[in-house]
């Protein structure tokens, strides 16, 4: 089981026990469709007043290039440890009640979700901010890669930018 979330900010009222555990979702990879509703439910908490679910989906057209699917792989053990660390950092930084990050691996066709990030907080602003903060960090440094398949069936691994020196920037 993942470590408990750090205590929410001082604005949060004492949280009664009933309701889903904020750790029920946590961070993990799945190899099939992502159930966004279940992930959102997993971050529900009595102290929460803002509950945000972000879903990143495969986009079918970028500029004039057609995408048929994206195929994801990850260094799973390292990635899960990093996701757990980011989740704990977000929980402390934004005073979250609950937080979960789920990434799909394998082929994800147009319209289906490759990532779900859910966050709940006493107020909406922190929940919105936390999901975006987490997404940007996942995209910047967590060892997950996608291979794009275009409309003609050509496959291309996507390796943007420069990861060298990342250990000094984090």
């Amino acid at each position, binding site marked *: 089981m993942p470590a408990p979330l750090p205590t929410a900010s001082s604005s949060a009222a004492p949280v009664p026990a009933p309701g889903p555990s904020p750790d029920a979702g946590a961070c993990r990879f799945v190899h099939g469709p992502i159930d966004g509703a279940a992930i959102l439910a997993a971050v529900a908490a009595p102290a929460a007043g803002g509950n945000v679910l972000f879903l990143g989906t495969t986009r079918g057209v970028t500029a004039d290039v057609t995408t048929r699917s994206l195929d994801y792989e990850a260094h799973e053990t*390292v990635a899960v440890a990093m996701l757990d660390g980011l989740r704990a950092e977000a929980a402390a930084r934004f005073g979250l009640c609950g937080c979960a990050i789920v990434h799909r691996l394998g082929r994800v066709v147009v319209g289906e979700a490759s990532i779900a990030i859910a966050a709940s907080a006493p107020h909406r602003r922190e929940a919105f901010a936390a999901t975006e903060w987490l997404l940007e960090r996942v995209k910047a440094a967590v*060892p997950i890669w996608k291979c794009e398949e275009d409309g003609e069936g050509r496959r291309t691994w996507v390796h943007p930018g420069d990861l060298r020196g990342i250990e000094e920037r984090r």
Partner: protein
Amino acid sequence: MSSVPTMADRLPPSAAGSPLAVILFAGMAEIVGARRLEMPWDGGTVADLRRELAAARPALGPLLARSAVCVAGRYAADHVTIAGGVEVALIPPVSGG
């Protein structure tokens, strides 16, 4: 990524040390045609490994120059020493999300 063979791709043996297993992902596995390389290893740093990999597999060079090296589960700077038997993975620029 079904197009990449999973069998280990063994480099020519050298006189020195025991081999170091290097795990490859995504475009790097595609370039090499394997998910795992065994490097002859007589000890050294991440920078040494980068040099030896670039020499042994020139096709990896351009992507390797933009990649991180993960040693025992952590991104490691060039000065970090790689002990025998630890897991080493090459981490090319990421594209999750």
